[in-house]
C-alpha cells in the first residue's frame, strides 16, 4: 500500500465539508449522496486514487464524526404564552350569543327564543319549534364544523364547499322529514289547531336553517360575525317590534312578527358570512414581497370529492353527540311542560329558573378554555420531550394537566354556585320569574355545576376524538333525565322535573370523569389515535 499524504488531506477536507452539511451521517451511502451534491464525481474520485465515489465515501465516513459540532440544534421554540385572563374572556366569547340574547330578554322583555309575553299555546308552539330546530340540527352542525375545519386547515375550499353543500342538503332533508313527521303526529295522533302546528313548524324551520348556515362561523371560531349577527338580529327585532306595536298590531302578532324579522336578519347575516368564508374564492393578488416570477402554490380548485358516505360514517359519533346534547339539555323542560294542569304547555316559571342557572356555564366555559386552549400545543411539546421508552411519563403529565383543569372547573363552579345561591332572589326577580322559578333556579344551579364538569370532560375528550363514549353517556343521561323527571313531575309537581336534571347531571359529571380515565391511562395511544 502506498502512503499518499495528499489523499489524506483531500479525504479530511471532504469529511469537514460533509460535517458542515450533515454532522450525523448514517453510512457511506449518505456520504456519497452529499459528495455528489458538492460536486464530487467518479472522475474526481479516480483522480485521488479511488475507483468511485462510493469507495471514497467509505473512507470519508469515519472521519466525519471528528468534525461534528459539539452542540445540537434546539428542538422547536417556546410555546406561545397568552394570559389566562385573555383566554378566559376568549372562552366566554363562545357563549356571547347566548349572553346577548338573554340581556336583550331582560332589558327589552323580548328575545329570539323566549316567549313569555305570549299566550301559553303560542308560547308552547314557539318553544317546541326552537327545541326541535336545535335538536334536529345539532348533529349536522357538529359534523359539518368538524369536517369543514379539516378541509379549511388544508386550505381546501372546494372540499369545504363540498361538505357545506352536503350538510345543507342533508340538513334540509332532515328538517323537512322531522317537520313533516311532527305535522303528521300533531294532526293525526295529537290533534291540535293547524295554526299552532304551523307556528311550531315555522320556528323549527327558521332556527334549523339558521343553525345550518352558521356552521362556518362556529367552525372557524369567528367571534366578530357571531357578535355582529346577534346585534343585527336584535336591532331588527326591536325596531320591528316598536313599529308593529305603533301600527296597532296585537301583542302576539307583534312578538311573532318581530322575532321573525330578527331571525330573518340572523339568517341573512349568517348566509353572507357563509358565502364569504366558504363560497367566495378570494382573488389572489401578489404581495409586495413576492417577485413577479414567484409561482405561488396554487389553491386546489377542481378537486375530486371524497365519497360522502365515508365522511358521514366517520362523523357519526359527532352527529350523535351533537344531537344528544340538545336532547339532554331540553329533556327536563319538556317534561315540566307535559305535566301541568292544562296538558302540554310552556312552563315559563320553570324555563326562567333553568335558563338563569344555565348562565353559570358561561364563565365556566371561560375557565375551561384557559386549559383547553393550551392542551394540544402543550401535549405536543411534552410528547416531543419524552423518549419512547417512557410512555408513563406522558400519562403522568396528562393526568396532572387534567387534574389542574378539573380543580379549576370545580373550584370556579363551586364559587359561582355559592354566589348564585346567595343572589338567587334578585336574579330571578330581574328575570321576571316567580317563587317556583326561584326553587327551580336553586336546584338547577347544582345541576349546572355537575353539568359543567361533564362539559369540561366532553371538550377534553373531543380533543382525543373520544366521541362515541360521550354519546353513549349522554344517551343514558337523556333517557334517565326523561324518566326521572317525568316520574317526579307526575307524582308530585311539574317543577320537580329539575331533579331529573340534577341527578343526571351528577351522573354525567361522575361518569365522564371515569370515561376520561379510561383513555388517559393509555395516554400515548389515545393521542396517536386522535392524530
Amino acid at each position, binding site marked *: 500500500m502506498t502512503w499518499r499524504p495528499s489523499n489524506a488531506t483531500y479525504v479530511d477536507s471532504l469529511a469537514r465539508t460533509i460535517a458542515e452539511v450533515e454532522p450525523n451521517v448514517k453510512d457511506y451511502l449518505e456520504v456519497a449522496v452529499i459528495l455528489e451534491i458538492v*460536486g464530487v464525481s467518479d472522475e474526481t474520485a479516480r483522480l485521488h486514487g479511488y475507483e468511485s465515489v462510493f469507495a471514497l465515501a467509505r473512507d470519508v465516513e469515519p472521519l466525519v464524526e471528528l468534525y461534528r459540532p459539539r452542540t445540537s440544534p434546539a428542538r422547536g421554540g417556546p410555546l406561545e404564552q397568552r394570559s389566562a385572563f385573555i383566554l378566559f374572556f376568549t372562552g366566554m366569547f363562545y357563549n356571547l350569543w347566548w349572553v346577548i340574547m338573554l340581556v336583550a330578554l331582560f332589558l327589552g322583555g323580548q328575545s329570539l327564543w323566549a316567549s313569555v309575553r305570549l299566550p301559553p299555546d303560542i308560547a308552547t308552539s314557539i318553544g317546541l319549534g326552537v327545541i326541535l330546530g336545535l335538536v334536529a340540527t345539532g348533529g349536522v352542525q357538529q359534523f359539518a364544523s368538524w369536517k369543514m375545519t379539516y378541509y379549511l386547515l388544508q386550505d381546501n375550499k372546494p372540499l369545504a364547499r363540498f361538505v357545506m353543500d352536503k350538510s345543507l342538503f342533508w340538513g334540509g332533508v332532515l328538517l323537512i322529514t322531522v317537520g313533516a313527521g311532527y305535522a303528521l303526529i300533531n294532526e293525526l295522533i295529537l290533534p291540535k289547531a293547524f295554526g299552532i302546528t304551523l307556528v311550531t313548524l315555522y320556528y323549527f324551520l327558521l332556527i334549523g336553517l339558521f343553525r345550518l348556515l352558521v356552521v362556518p362561523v362556529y367552525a372557524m371560531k369567528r367571534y366578530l360575525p357571531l357578535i355582529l349577527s346577534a346585534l343585527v338580529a336584535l336591532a331588527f327585532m326591536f325596531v320591528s317590534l316598536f313599529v308593529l306595536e305603533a301600527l296597532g298590531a296585537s301583542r302576539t302578532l307583534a312578538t311573532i312578527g318581530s322575532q321573525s324579522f330578527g331571525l330573518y336578519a340572523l339568517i341573512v347575516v349568517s348566509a353572507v358570512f357563509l358565502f364569504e368564508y366558504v363560497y367566495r374564492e378570494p382573488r389572489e393578488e401578489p404581495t409586495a414581497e413576492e417577485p413577479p416570477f414567484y409561482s405561488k402554490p396554487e389553491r386546489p380548485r377542481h378537486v375530486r370529492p371524497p*365519497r360522502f358516505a365515508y365522511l358521514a360514517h366517520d362523523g357519526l359519533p359527532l352527529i350523535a353527540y351533537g344531537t344528544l346534547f340538545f336532547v339532554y339539555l331540553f329533556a327536563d323542560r319538556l317534561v315540566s311542560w307535559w305535566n301541568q294542569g292544562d296538558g302540554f304547555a310552556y312552563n315559563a316559571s320553570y324555563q326562567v329558573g333553568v335558563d338563569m342557572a344555565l348562565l353559570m356555564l358561561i364563565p365556566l366555559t371561560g375557565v375551561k378554555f384557559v386549559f383547553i386552549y393550551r392542551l394540544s400545543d402543550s401535549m405536543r411539546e411534552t410528547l416531543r420531550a419524552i423518549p419512547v421508552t417512557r410512555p408513563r411519563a406522558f400519562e403522568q403529565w396528562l393526568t396532572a394537566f387534567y387534574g389542574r383543569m378539573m380543580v379549576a372547573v370545580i373550584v370556579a363552579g363551586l364559587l359561582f354556585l355559592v354566589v348564585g345561591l346567595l343572589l338567587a332572589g334578585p336574579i330571578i326577580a330581574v328575570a321576571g320569574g316567580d317563587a317556583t322559578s326561584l326553587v327551580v333556579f336553586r336546584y338547577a344551579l347544582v345541576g349546572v355545576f355537575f353539568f359543567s364538569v361533564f362539559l369540561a370532560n366532553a371538550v377534553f375528550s373531543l380533543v382525543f376524538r373520544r366521541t362515541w363514549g360521550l354519546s353513549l353517556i349522554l344517551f343514558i343521561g337523556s333517557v334517565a333525565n326523561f324518566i326521572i323527571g317525568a316520574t317526579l313531575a307526575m307524582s308530585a309537581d311539574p317543577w320537580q322535573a329539575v331533579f331529573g336534571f340534577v341527578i343526571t347531571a351528577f351522573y354525567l359529571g361522575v361518569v365522564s370523569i371515569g370515561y376520561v380515565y379510561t383513555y388517559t391511562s393509555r395516554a400515548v395511544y389515545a393521542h396517536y389515535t386522535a*392524530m
Partner: protein
Amino acid sequence: MGGVSTWADSLIRGLPDIRFEIVSIVSNPNVELRYRLPRNVERIRTLPLWGEERPEEFNGETYRSFLHRRLHTRDRFVRHSFLPHFEDFLEGSVNGDGGLERVAESLYQMHLYFQDRDFKKTFQSKPVFDLFESFLAGHQLYRDISVLEAANILRTLSRYLKVLTVHPGEADVSHSAIASIAGLIGVVEKMKRDVPFILTEHGLYYRERVLDLINRAPDFPTKVLWSNFFRTVARLNYRYADRVYPVCKFNRRWQREAGVPDDRISVVYNGVDTRRFRPMAVDRPYPGPTVTSVIRIDRLKDAMNLIVAMSHVRQEIPNARCLIYGPAPDLDYAQLCLGTVKKLGLQETVRFMGYTSQPEAAYNAGDVVVMPSVSEGFPYALLEAMAVGKPIVATDVGGVREALGDGGIVVPPRSPRILADAVVTLFRDPALQAQLGNEARLRVQVAYPLEGFLRQYGDIYRGYAS
C-alpha cells in the same frame, strides 16, 4: 411539469396499441390531472397518501363491503393475523434485519390481510401501536426517539403502506416509474400472480430521500429509521424487478451499488420530440449576446450559481444578458435570487421571465443555454435544449455529462467563475457555438429520438405480453 410526467405521457401516448391501467400515487386528493388521458388508458386509479381519513373515501369499494371489513376487524384478529407480518416488516425494513424476502413476504401477507380487514382500524388498533412502541423501545438507537415522533412515524408508515390496499387488474406486466413505495404494488403482484415487474428510474429514489432526510429529519435516530425504510423499499424494487431500466448510466452506478446484477440493468434513454424542439426563428427579447436557462428556480437547480456567474460574464462582455425562464415555487429562494441580482447590480443583465409553456421558444431566444444545477438525473430540459441546436454549458451532475457528450461544455457544480469562463468562451467564439450546437442536435437525433425510446419500450411490453 416534471420530467417523469412528461416521460409517462410520451410513453403512453406514443404506444397506442398497448393498454394501460395507471395507479397514480399522489400526495393529496387535490392533485389535478394535467394531461388529457389517451384512449389506451383503461383506468386511472388515484391513491392519495394524505388529505383523507381512510382509503375508502377515494376507492370504488361498496359501503357494504367496507362495513363488513370494519366489523370483522377486531383486536384479537389484528393480534393473530396482522401483527406477526407487521413485526416481520419492521424487523426487515426499519431494522434492516432478516433479508428482503422476509420483508416481501410480510408485505404480501399484509396485502392479503387488507382484502378482508379494515386498514384504518388495524393501524389505529392498540396491538399495532403497542407493538410499534415496544419495537422502538427495544432498539438500541430508536429508543431515543420521542413519543411524538414515534406516533408520527407509525402514522406515516401506515400512509405509505396504503399501497397494499391496491388491487390492480390483471396485466401482462407491472411497470413502476420509481423505486419507491409505488413499486411495492409490482412486488406484491409478482408474488401474488407472478406478473413480471419492470422498473424505470429517473431520479434515484433512495438518494433523493436521503437528501430530504438531511434537511428534514428531526433527529438522528429518526433519520436512520427512515433511511433504512427507504433503502429497503428501493432494494425491494431492485430485487423483485425482472429488469431495471435506468434513464442513464449514472443511475446504474447506484443500482449496482444496491446489488442489482449488471445483466438485469439496461439503460433506456429518454426520447425527445425533435419536431417540436428544433432550431426556429423566434422574437428574441434581447438582440445582443444572450444566455437562456429553463429551470425551476430553487436550490437544487441552483439559479444562484448562474446569477453569480453572470456578474463575471458581464465584466468581460458588458452587453451580455441572461433570461431565466421557469417558476419559483420557493418564495425565500426567489427573494434571495432577486436580492443577489440587486446586490451585484445585475438588474439590467439578469431577467426572470417566469414560467413558460413554450420551452422550445425560450431556448431559441438565446445564444447559449446554461443548466446550473447541483443535482440532476437525465434531464429532459437538457435534451430539449440540445435538440434546439444551442450550445450548452451545464454542471457535471447526474447524467448530464453522459447526455451532453461533445455537444456542450461541462463545468463543476457551484463554481460560478468556471461557469462564467465557459459562457464567455462561447460568446467570443461563434464558430464554437455553432459547432457545439450542431453536435448537440445531431446527438439527440441519433441517441435520444422519441421514436427510439418508444420502440424500446414497445418491444419490452410486447415481449412480456407474448
